[in-house]
């Protein structure tokens, strides 16, 4: 879908309504922090808007996911540095864990458990598995975003799931 330059405000808002949740979910699996993930989602949409003022963006969705993942990776590095200087105890006094979540929620607990396994995945596998599991996109769509072949998406997804399965089984054993 080729867009006129600049991207009309209305189209951007429609895109936001359609993609906010899946983009947020993908980004969250890189940052594990709700506010930071939301910040990255907003920044990605803003970058899309700004970019559309200088050039035509053929596939806004692909651009958006690509930008969001890159921003999340950058933010992840920043957070790691920040966490070096923050103690978990201090964070708990603020009512959150060191990643900004409530510690009592079952869902949060499940996310926390999965985080260990997902973070073991190499970046390339993690990109594929989060995009394919959390966005309802086809292999072809994911391939377009990551600029790889659809067959590579399939094989990386297969490998990622196999590693996750093994990691979970080892954990339960």
């Amino acid at each position, binding site marked *: 879908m080729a867009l006129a330059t600049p991207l009309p405000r209305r189209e951007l808002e429609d895109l936001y309504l359609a993609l906010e949740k899946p983009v947020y979910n993908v980004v969250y699996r890189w940052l594990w922090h709700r*506010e930071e993930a939301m910040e990255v989602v907003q920044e990605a949409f803003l970058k899309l808007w700004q970019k559309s003022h200088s050039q035509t963006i053929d596939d806004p969705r692909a651009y958006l996911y690509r930008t969001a993942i890159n921003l999340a990776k950058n933010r992840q590095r920043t957070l790691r540095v920040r966490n070096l200087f923050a103690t978990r105890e201090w964070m708990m006094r603020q009512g959150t864990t060191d990643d900004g979540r409530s510690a009592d929620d079952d*869902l949060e607990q499940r996310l926390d458990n999965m985080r260990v396994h997902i973070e073991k995945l190499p970046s390339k596998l993690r990109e594929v598995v989060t995009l394919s599991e959390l966005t309802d996109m086809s292999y072809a769509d994911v391939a377009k975003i990551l600029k790889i072949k659809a067959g590579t998406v399939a094989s990386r997804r297969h490998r990622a799931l196999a590693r996750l399965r093994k990691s979970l089984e080892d954990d339960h054993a």
Partner: protein
Amino acid sequence: MLDEDSQLIFPRLDPPAGGLTSLRQRLEADRSDSRYRTAGPRRALGAAAAVALVVCLAVGAQWQRQESLANLQRWGFIGDPNFDIMSNSQQPHAQPGLSVENTLEAAAMPVGNTSGTVMFYWVESTASGDD
């Protein structure tokens, strides 16, 4: 296991409320940014600067060429039948026996000095047999 329980492994979270409102505020703040108001003039200025640069380079090259010709004229090489032109192998336009003017035309570049990529050797080809 994962295929069937994907929702368990990858539960889909709801983003915090108010995302669209927040985005609208950011867009408004961004729109008031001067970069968009001045994008047109800045582009025009950039294009004008690029054209001016090209013109300056062309005028400079032409001036240098004229200077070279003037020097050759002053040194008495042009029009003197006792001088021939030879060149090193890196300058394909210069051939033994070709006149200075024709060589300059063919090369379409300033020549006449011994620095840089273009280097000519002026050889007296008189009946004395000197080379």
